[in-house]
């Protein structure tokens, strides 16, 4: 698994880093720490921001037991160097671990940069933090988490501060759902030590035969992997209100592939609202 973690200088980025370190510790993922400074690419990179990235990298590596760390140690005197205008990186160094860890800083508009880097490295998951204020600030640059989630070719996890909830709400019931999405949910269930609620949509209180079959398959899939799934039947017209009761969930996972029924029902402005306003973390699966 290859994970790109997008970071700015806000508190939620530091929080996200700690949680993703646990995911990385579990999965031995290849990691890219991408710091984004919202300045023009031809301006000088502020020392304050490189210091923040140093701290992030140290904090991230400190989460691992050195004897079992998949990543090499952070080396002294390994400064960031500008490899292209507005792109700074640290060389991996000779003490490389079995898994890759790249650290880069880029200057410019965050969502475009995140999408470009994600495409370049071919990552499986983009993770970025977000606060729970009304407009979900992420550098000056508009609703960055939403724009990334909407346009990325891979899954995107928008992390909020932890809630006490230990349940994952999964909106997955379309027949075209990808194997990678099912596997990503399994990893999240392990990471959040959470039970799984799978939504089945009803219309006029009737469940389509194809949906029923798919739900049965999903239930068997997770049960055989020793994850306890709960099926929640929700009337189509009540879906938004149901999801809005998000205090119940630590994570809302929604499959948003091209064929997704949820993409049709839960159109873009509602997804944007969900990412912005939800107190739960949101995982958009592709």
């Amino acid at each position, binding site marked *: *698994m*290859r994970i790109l973690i997008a970071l700015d200088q806000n508190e939620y980025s530091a929080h996200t880093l700690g949680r993703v370190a646990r995911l990385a*510790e579990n999965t*031995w993922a290849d990691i890219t720490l991408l710091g984004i400074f919202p300045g023009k690419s031809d301006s000088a990179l502020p020392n304050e921001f490189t210091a923040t990235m140093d701290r992030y990298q140290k904090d991230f590596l400190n989460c691992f037991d050195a004897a079992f760390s998949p990543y090499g140690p952070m080396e002294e005197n390994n400064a960031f160097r500008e490899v292209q205008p507005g792109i700074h990186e640290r060389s991996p160094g000779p003490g490389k671990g079995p898994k890759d860890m790249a650290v880069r800083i880029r200057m410019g508009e965050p969502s475009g940069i995140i999408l470009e880097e994600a495409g370049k490295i*071919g990552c*499986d998951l983009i993770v970025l933090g977000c606060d729970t204020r009304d407009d979900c600030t992420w550098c000056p640059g508009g609703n960055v988490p939403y724009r990334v989630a909407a346009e990325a070719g891979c899954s995107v996890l928008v992390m909020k501060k932890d809630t006490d909830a230990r349940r994952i709400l999964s909106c997955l019931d379309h027949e075209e759902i990808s*194997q990678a999405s099912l*596997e*990503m949910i399994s*990893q999240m269930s392990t990471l959040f030590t959470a039970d799984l609620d799978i939504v089945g949509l009803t219309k006029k209180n009737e469940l389509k035969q194809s949906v029923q079959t798919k739900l049965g398959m999903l239930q068997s899939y997770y049960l055989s992997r020793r994850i306890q799934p709960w099926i929640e039947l929700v009337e189509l017209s009540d879906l938004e209100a149901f999801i809005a009761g998000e205090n119940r969930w630590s994570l809302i996972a929604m499959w948003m592939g091209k064929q997704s029924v949820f993409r049709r029902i839960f159109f873009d402005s509602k997804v944007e609202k969900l990412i912005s306003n939800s107190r739960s973390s949101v995982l958009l699966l592709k």
Partner: protein
Amino acid sequence: MSLEIMILDDETIVGERLKASLEKDGHRLEAFTEPLRAMERLRAHDFDIVVTDIRMDNVSGIEILELVKRKSPGTKVIMITGYATLEVARESLTKGAFDFIAKPFKIGEIRKTIEKAHDALKAQQKG
């Protein structure tokens, strides 16, 4: 050099995807979905590389790892899992796994790891 590789995953789709891709690279592949049958084969034959899922019915990937390392210590074992935890990663590596890969993964990731294992096998033969 063509390698002999065993793939063991109780999800048919995983073995099928890997088999098609790695055979294109010139390797000889045997894919299994039933751990007990894979164990029988491992007792009868040594592979260069074994790729095994960790969580399966009846037998765990850790038992597969132990069997391989007992019988053929030079074989490189790559563990794959959909339910990664720190404990499982540590146990795998302590018991001699070559690498640990969490699902979902891209075929390219497995191919890269197979190449690394191949390099390690070559170094082993020289040394």
